[in-house]
């Protein structure tokens, strides 16, 4: 395995994606919304607007808290309503939404790399290079996965800082992240990044344009929305154990998808699609 070739392919793909505004637009917008705007909004609103008014709009917070497991409910014991609101919104309700980022980043870069390269008719020259099929595959996968994970982690970091600063006036301490966030960041986020690219590679064999791939992989967001709804309704709560379990399932799915992708990622079939 020639790692110099793999990194060259990954760097080249990233370099190319950087020039694609359609790919980078969401990569800038989402972290801004998730890591800065939303936590500021949820942390500051109760400090200025009576929480009863917010509660009327959002539903009964105490009723929502009853959906949490008892050990998690303990975190809220003794807190004011405003404090409960900030804690619930920023540390619980919001958590699964962060998984949109690795999923979206990796699938957008993957779509540009796997389908875009074919669409722009640059694939043939690459296939005439001495890089092996595996090196081409890994280069392209790494180009999608590494920045997706790094960008997600950066967003988490900014989110942690912003949440603590924005809620400090209300909670008077640095309280975030809660234990659930660690496996979310370091187990589930990489799993979702790999899921994004694995599904994109599978889809890339069946679509002709970047836009088609982009739109199809966008449907993966349904998984994240399912987690959010599960959390709101109390059907599924993202505690440490649940996050680890979901992550394990996703990694198993990833392993199967990657195995199938490697088996199908052959020069002869790629050239036939040009």
């Amino acid at each position, binding site marked *: 395995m020639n790692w110099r070739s793999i990194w060259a392919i990954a760097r080249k793909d990233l370099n190319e994606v950087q020039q694609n505004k359609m790919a980078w637009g969401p990569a800038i917008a989402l972290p801004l919304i998730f890591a800065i705007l939303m936590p500021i909004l949820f942390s500051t609103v109760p400090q200025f607007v009576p929480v009863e008014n917010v509660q009327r709009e959002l539903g009964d917070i105490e009723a929502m808290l009853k959906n949490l497991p008892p050990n998690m409910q303990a975190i809220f014991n003794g807190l004011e309503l405003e404090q409960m609101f900030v804690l619930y919104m920023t540390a619980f309700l919001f958590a699964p939404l962060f998984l949109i980022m690795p999923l979206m980043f990796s699938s957008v870069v993957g779509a540009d790399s796997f389908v875009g390269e074919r669409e722009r008719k640059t694939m043939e020259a690459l296939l005439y*290079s*001495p890089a092996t099929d595996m090196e081409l595959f890994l280069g392209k996968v790494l180009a999608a996965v590494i920045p997706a994970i790094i960008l997600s982690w950066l967003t988490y970091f900014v989110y942690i800082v912003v949440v603590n600063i924005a809620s400090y006036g209300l909670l008077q301490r640095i309280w975030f992240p809660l234990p659930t966030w660690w496996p979310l960041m370091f187990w589930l986020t990489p799993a979702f990044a790999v899921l994004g690219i694995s599904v994109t590679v599978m889809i890339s064999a069946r679509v002709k344009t970047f836009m088609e791939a982009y739109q199809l992989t966008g449907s993966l967001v349904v998984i994240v929305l399912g987690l959010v709804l599960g959390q709101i309704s109390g059907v599924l709560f993202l505690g440490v154990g649940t996050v680890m379990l979901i992550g394990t399932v996703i990694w198993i799915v990833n392993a199967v998808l990657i195995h199938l992708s490697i088996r199908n990622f052959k020069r002869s079939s790629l050239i036939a699609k040009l």
Partner: protein
Amino acid sequence: MSIIEVNNLRRTFSEHVAVDEMTFNVESGEVFGLLGPNGAGKTTTVRLLNGILPPSNGTARVFGLDPATQGEMIRRGTGVLTETPALYERLSAHENLKFFATLQAIPATDINRRVDEILEFFDLSSRAKDKVETFSKGMKQRLALARALIHKPPLLFLDEPTSGLDPEAAQQVNDLISNLSRANGQTVMLATHNLVEAQRLCDRVAVINKGRILALGSLNELARKLWPVTWVDITFHVKPRGDIAGSLKSSRGVIRVSMEDESLAVQVENADVIPEVVRHLANKGESILRVNPRDYTLEDIYFALQAGEA
């Protein structure tokens, strides 16, 4: 020494036969043309020889290696100019070349020097940092050729190298190709349907259609195969007296003679007979102004072969 050896090579796509029982050799240092209309199997042959596609049947050896199993090693020694330039338009010329130089395992310490050197050779240095999307077609083609040559491959595959270029740019590219084989001794396989280009550049050609080789050889060999007899036009200074045509007909090697005003068209068995004919006429005291053996162009050969195939 043969750098490419192909034996009964065949490639099918479902029912369609793209390459059908091809057999040919390419010698080291020669420019070999693969001539045929669109869809004749030229690009598929290039792909088979580079190990991009496995053959359905038959064997091929490039540098003595099997493309089906040793494609990576073969591609280290080949440079391919694809029919479309296939350049990364959002990247600069320098970035494009640097990327392919890395894939070709040029040492990191030499890459920038080599990229600058080849950009200079192709007269693209002043545009090195510009994105390729701002280049003209001719510049893109030169850059694609630079990419194919970045690692100084001993074997070069050029697929329709002047396709879509204006005459001036096409001329530039042809001059470059000509220099490569003459000056550097590189072996070139030229896949084209441009007959003028092939006649100018190729030492030998294989004329193909529907994946099959119709004829193989140098221009003269092909002409001889197609037209074993040859014609020579003789123009006189003064119209000949008497039955000069009749006297020529009895000469050895002369097949047919027709006289028209001051000129004579003589069909002879082969070119060796022409000096005999001229001597015969001179001995008869005829005043000869011009002797023109009829030349066949690659175009004549190509269309004769394709017509025969049809």
